[in-house]
């Protein structure tokens, strides 16, 4: 019985935190908000690739580390803690589709490149994409970083998955202007684009794994939003007392600490449950994503409220957390959708 990170996982977490704080602190994230670049910091991507973190879930035979989802979740949480931008999680997710469902050729072609940080891939799902004779048509909205991707994994109607070249004929990628600029959301339009089908329709498994990674991102967002607020309210004075000594604020922050702690536990449990194939793994995925979405929304809203006026300015970090939390809340199932799935499991016994 051991419910905690291993020493190795803790060491990884320290390394990643230090690295990100050094290479991509929040000031760099804030700079992205004022930039007109492509929103994908190239140097950060390069360094992350060099660290080998993109290899975390890639099997050793494809030059990866062959670690578990829990290890990837450790990374995702660090990403959330720092509101770190770039197609890191999208690439992990799309590479999971290739790992789980790709043909040997597809895996050999792509997984080593992903592991080395040489290829960016992203998952385009949730649109109404139809396929006729290997040609795909349809529009998929809110696809992360398709504009810089080397390959798209496209989910078509019926749950089949296709590898699509974003630079190929019949593919248009339009960047949209999202509130949260720690990601880039694009619209992918396919008009008879050539697709190379994956060997297995593994979308449900991929979506579950994505939900766990984003739940951990959200848990990281929530924790730092709370910690920053607690620290600020320990020293900021109003009416001659630290704001954090007012009981109404203390109690609100205490309730958030409970909620965020539960989201953290749930994030680890769900990752482990998938790794270990526990019978309640599906339930755990939905528990983790709904709890993390709720906790992050509340913690980041509290970050604004309990910083007072300054928390509402462009210059303060609060809105970076708030906007990222609000974005990731809806990715891979929002809390209400995951609760309905829990109801299907628990009420309907489905």
């Amino acid at each position: 019985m051991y419910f905690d990170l291993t020493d190795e996982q803790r060491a990884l977490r320290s390394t990643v935190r230090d690295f990100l704080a050094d290479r991509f602190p929040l000031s760099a994230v804030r700079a992205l908000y004022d930039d007109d670049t492509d929103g994908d910091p190239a140097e950060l991507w390069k360094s992350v690739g060099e660290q080998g973190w993109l290899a975390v879930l890639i099997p050793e035979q494809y030059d990866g580390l062959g670690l578990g989802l829990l290890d990837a979740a450790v990374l995702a949480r660090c990403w959330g803690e720092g509101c770190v931008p770039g197609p890191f999680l999208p690439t992990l997710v799309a590479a999971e589709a290739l790992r789980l469902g790709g043909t040997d050729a597809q895996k050999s072609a792509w997984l080593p490149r992903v592991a080395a940080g040489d290829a960016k891939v992203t998952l385009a799902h949730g649109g109404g994409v139809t396929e006729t004779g290997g040609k795909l048509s349809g529009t998929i909205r809110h696809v992360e970083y398709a504009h810089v991707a080397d390959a798209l994994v496209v989910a078509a109607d019926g749950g089949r998955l296709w590898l699509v070249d974003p630079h190929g004929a019949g593919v248009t990628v339009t960047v949209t202007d999202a509130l949260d600029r720690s990601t880039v959301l694009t619209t992918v339009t396919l008009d008879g684009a050539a697709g190379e089908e994956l060997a297995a329709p593994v979308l449900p498994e991929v979506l579950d794994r994505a939900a766990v990674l984003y739940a951990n991102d959200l848990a990281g967002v929530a924790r730092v939003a709370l910690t920053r607020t607690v620290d600020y309210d320990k020293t900021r004075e109003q009416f001659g007392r630290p704001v954090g000594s007012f009981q109404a604020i203390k109690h609100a922050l205490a309730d958030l600490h409970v909620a965020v702690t539960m989201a953290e536990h749930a994030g680890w449990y769900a990752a482990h449950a998938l790794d270990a194939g526990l019978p309640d793994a599906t339930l755990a995925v939905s528990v983790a994503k709904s709890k993390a979405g709720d906790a992050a929304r509340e913690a980041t809203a509290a970050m604004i409220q309990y910083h007072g006026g300054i928390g509402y300015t462009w210059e303060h970090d609060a809105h970076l957390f708030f906007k990222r939390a609000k974005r990731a809340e809806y990715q891979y199932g929002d809390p209400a959708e995951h609760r309905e799935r829990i109801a299907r499991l628990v009420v309907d016994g489905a």
Partner: protein
Amino acid sequence: MDLTYSEADERFRTEFRGWLDANLPAQWRERGFWAKQDRDEGFRMRREWEAGKARAGFAGIQWPTEYGGRGGTPAQRAIYDEEMVRYRAPLTVNGLGLTFLAPTLMVIGTDEQKREIIKPLLHNEVIWCQGFSEPNAGSDLAALQCRAESDGDEYVINGQKIWTSQAMHADKMFGLFRTSTEDKKHRGITMLIVDLRSPDGSPAPGVDIRPLKQMTGGLDFGEVFFTDVRVPKTNVIGVEGGGWDVAMLLLSFERGSSAMPQYTGFRRELDDVVGLARDLGRDRNPLLRQRIANSVVELECLKYHSLHILTQVEQGKELGAASSMTKLQWSETHQDIGELFADVAGLAHQISGDGLDDLQRSFLWSRSETIWGGSSQVQRNIVAERLLGLPR
């Protein structure tokens, strides 16, 4: 109970609607019109239009005619507010002056102040901002530090104000300044009028005005820095050292105002959310329906509450701290509508340029509404202590 307006009041409504029909450009009423205008140009358009409205007699509805007001009833004021929102007429550009400064001067201003300030204010010849908050004095006004040191017939101001609405467009500021550091904290404060602009419109010497960007990306607030800015002592409102009491009087004028404009505006915003739900085929979703209905419940309650407040005002009753309830009810409800919008739109709530921009801005802006003008925490203190009598 009688929720009908008098004939005279309804005549006023008809008359005002007539004026709006004739004078409010149709495209101004379109969703998103103002967001598309250049900020300064938009301000100029609103300033001029509002001045014309004042010349036509549709300003200062409840103010005595001697100040250029209309001498109307509280009900007419409510009708005015209602119609302004219903017509999507532009918001006033001189709200702080209209709501706070002018009524205060009517009570305690010198004859000269009344004459020189009130009417020009009503006609937008002078735009006013309020200088209360400072970086370390938000909810806690007694802690303010921006100094006004006596020097002969003048004060010399040094320090900073923050969260100043309209700072970028204001000509003058009424604000609280520390004129003594020896008295008890809230005794050493004086309310002063400060010219912010040189005759050519540039900031006056020693005045530095910087916009404060909000998380919406908008620039509705500013910071104002003072370096040796000289102000004649005739610019005192009330008496030196009496600033705290003047501020309390000034803030009391918020109390009488009903929340009918908020009701009307937010109901329309909610209608837009419902329309969005319909467009997205999510209007049959039972969870969203409950949330929509809940916002309707809270807004309708705000309406009933406003009618009650209006009755109290018309009966000449003291409202006490009821405005804190009003503020909590509208600001928290508006925040819920913002969250509802996001849940209806899903990930699309993130995307600008999609026709959602007004709702998106409201969603973000509503996060500030529980902070400025007395945070929800401060309002709850007031409700608990002054309305329920709970001990400090």
